[in-house]
């Protein structure tokens, strides 16, 4: 993926979330704004036969993986045209046929599942790998340690990506995790690891590409820690606890502005070209919203379908 495509992908996520946030029926959401570079950089390293799993902060990962924004918006707004028929929502958004095995909204809950998906792909010799994006809040959970252990023992084709935004709602990572870096957790298991600036999409892409090469080669799992920022509250139902100065410092690291600036500096992006890309992203988001709004709401009978 070249820099222009990476920029467009990040802009698409930002514009999508801005459109969703303004919608009166947006409901309970966890936004990826600020963390776009993690999802986009990791997905740039994935191929069509790979699967991506995410935490409940799924909008960035799903769009970066290439899911149609219209059906994603439909799923988030509870419409029948969502890939999960509007029954999963953001927390459980999934479209495995498009390479997004799915979100799971229990912190750390998708880690052992991802190991299982990786085991199935290893045994079926599909040649694909699994990437699982989880927050730093999952790093203290037993599920991560169990997953690291089994993935190392069985050399599972699994890339674990810690989207480290530094906060478990109100608890800073320093108060929740003894090791200094999430990537330190990989070392005792002999798992190859890298730490990158998660606001630098090029760095994320390059590190993810190197690690996926390692994983694809059958050498076992890898761990990528991305130091990122979330630009809004943990969720739409949560209070912000950070100071205005801290928020400004976080926003100053914006991955979109950063990439655009470096492309401008190197003559790869004209000022009007960025405006055009931003307008395209806003148009695509508006179009996704229109598709969702025109879609029928999920039928009440769906309560009894696909239960057993």
């Amino acid at each position: 993926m070249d820099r222009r495509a990476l920029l467009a992908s990040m802009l698409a996520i930002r514009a999508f979330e801005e459109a969703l946030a303004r919608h009166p029926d947006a409901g309970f959401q966890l936004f990826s704004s600020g963390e776009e570079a993690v999802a986009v950089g990791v997905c740039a390293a994935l191929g069509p036969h790979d699967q991506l799993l995410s935490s409940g902060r799924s909008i960035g990962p799903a769009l970066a993986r290439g899911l149609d924004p219209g059906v994603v918006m439909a799923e988030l707004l509870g419409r029948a045209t969502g890939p999960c028929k509007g029954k999963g929502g953001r927390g459980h958004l999934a479209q495995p046929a498009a390479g997004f095995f799915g979100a799971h909204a229990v912190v750390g809950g998708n880690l052992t599942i991802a190991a299982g998906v990786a085991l199935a792909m290893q045994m079926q010799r599909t040649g694909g790998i699994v990437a699982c994006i989880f927050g730093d809040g999952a790093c203290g959970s037993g599920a991560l340690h169990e997953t690291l252990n089994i993935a190392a023992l069985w050399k599972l084709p699994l890339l674990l990506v810690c989207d480290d935004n530094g906060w478990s709602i109100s608890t800073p990572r320093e108060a929740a995790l003894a090791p200094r870096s999430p990537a330190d957790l990989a070392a005792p298991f002999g798992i190859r690891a890298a730490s990158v600036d998660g606001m630098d999409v090029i760095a994320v892409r390059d590190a993810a590409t190197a690690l996926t090469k390692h994983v694809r080669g059958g050498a076992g799992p890898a761990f990528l820690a991305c130091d990122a920022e979330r630009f809004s509250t943990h969720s739409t139902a949560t209070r912000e606890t950070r100071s205005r100065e801290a928020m400004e410092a976080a926003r100053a690291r914006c991955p979109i502005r950063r990439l655009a600036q470096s492309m401008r500096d190197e003559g790869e992006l004209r000022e009007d070209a960025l405006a055009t890309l931003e307008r395209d992203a806003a148009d695509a988001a508006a179009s996704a919203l229109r598709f969702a709004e025109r879609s029928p709401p999920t039928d009440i009978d769906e309560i009894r379908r696909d239960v057993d």
Partner: protein
Amino acid sequence: MSTERVAKVFFAEAIARALGEAMARDPRVVILGQDVGRFGGPYREFAGLHARFGDERVRDMPVAEASMVGVGVGAAAAGLRPLVSITYMDFVMLGLDPLVNYGAKLRYKTGGQLTAPVVVKCTAGAKGQGVAHSQSLESWLAGVAGLKVVAPSTPADAYGLMVAALADGGPVVYVDHKRLFPTAGELADAPAPVPIGRAIVRRPGRDVTIATHSYMCRVADAAADRLAADGISCEIVDLRTLWPLDVATVAASVARTGALVTLEEGQLACGIGSEVAFRVREEVGRMRVVRLGAARAPVSGNPRLEAATLPRPDDVAAAVRRLLDAKADER
């Protein structure tokens, strides 16, 4: 006239046979868990399978049930058909997040895009091993939408329900019992699967219906023998599947006998018996009913305390006599 031959087999042999046949038929079937490989399973219920199918398909795992269940459920979602072996049912608690929050809801939450055809096999029941190695938690799991729960009481059902569970869209929790492993029973040369959701009348009788499952079928049978000496005839219905419940078979029996005893090794409060009794009552109207189950106390490893905590044949016989002496429920 059937010419089919039958053999006496132990519970563990029946399970191993069902798994061996399924694994030979379907390369997607794999076994994950503690001590499932060369060791052959805590009760030798996987004996011979590692030698036959190898390390890749019969995998020992670290003693970490959350990942045992999570890996099993995830692999099932991605196309395998794993059986996850949890040595004691008490430890399934460590795997409840992937089982309940993910596996049980997967088909629903993805709108049918994904399913989790996984069997979680765990061994329930008390046999002197103490408060965290003795529990029968079927009622917890039967209360979860999206889970099926089966609990065989004979080797033939152990075989037949295992075949059905491995073929099901899942997840299925397969509950066997420590005290059933030393028991033997008949298994045909070409045994049939036992459909999930089908109870069976284990012992026909006239005067009272005892609805029970797993090892408690044997306790009920011992009680019925004692009562028969006094001319009281008990019909024993083995539920076999705890969700979906076969209410019709129990209700048909109660319609004949007019009296129902529910009997389980798990706790009485919010137990299987409460669900069975109420739903049978909704079907048949007036009936006499009593529930029996474990006392609301942990199950100690002290044999005297353990025995006193759980229903014994004498308790069941006494409850039947009291019930038959009482007037029919007038409500």
